[in-house]
């Protein structure tokens, strides 16, 4: 892709997706929502998540050669 192609695609992109206006503001006061979010109790992971973690750990312990393969696809 040469410089001209790049410029043409940039121009097309700017026409298709106009930039956001300067200094946009949220439509409401978000502070009360932040406070509610901070007060919310953290959701405990369901038991099957722990079972999955335990299963993966056991699999990794029995088949350590699978660890790099697993990390590669992560």
């Amino acid at each position, binding site marked *: 892709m040469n410089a001209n192609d790049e410029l043409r695609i940039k121009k097309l992109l700017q026409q*298709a997706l106009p930039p956001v206006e300067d200094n946009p503001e*949220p439509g409401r006061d978000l502070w009360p929502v932040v406070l509610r979010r901070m007060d919310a109790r953290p959701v405990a992971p369901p038991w099957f998540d722990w079972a999955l973690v335990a299963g993966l750990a056991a699999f990794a312990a029995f088949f350590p050669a699978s660890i790099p393969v697993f990390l590669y696809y992560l």
Partner: protein
Amino acid sequence: MRNGSIDVLNDFRQGDIAAFETLFRLHQRAVYGWILRIVRNPAAAEDLTVESFWRIHRAHARFQPSRGFEAWARRIATRAAFDWLRIQHPETELPVGLQAPATADPAISGEIRRKTALAFYRLPPKLRVAAVLAVIEERPHKDIAEALGISVAAVKLRVFRALRLLRKDLGEQGITP
């Protein structure tokens, strides 16, 4: 309201809610605007602003006042926006709030603009974030690199790859830029 002095930053680091509110009031517009530029959906940007400030509060003990609040907040906001983009399904319709530019080039039809926008939303999120900030919003590469936690060269590479993929996608639709 106290300004963004080092006292406020230090108090925030200690977990002081009043200091956190001060910083929230000072930076919420900037954080919201940054997220909106990435996700281009006002409702999602509001939710992600809340999520970002919640993450910011949760990480207050790791904050380093000497490095400043804004860049740190922007980095956390970018991560939140990126997480949101990753769980979105491939776009078949344009996002809410997307409008044609006020100074639309008459040589480019509405249909081409729509196809270009859809092709853009099909890009991998990593490339899309770099391209939207660098090409559409024309933010400095240095700011983008800081927000993404990568080098300026890596930003340029992602933008180049995004434009190349976009050209390929448009070419397959019979659109030659």
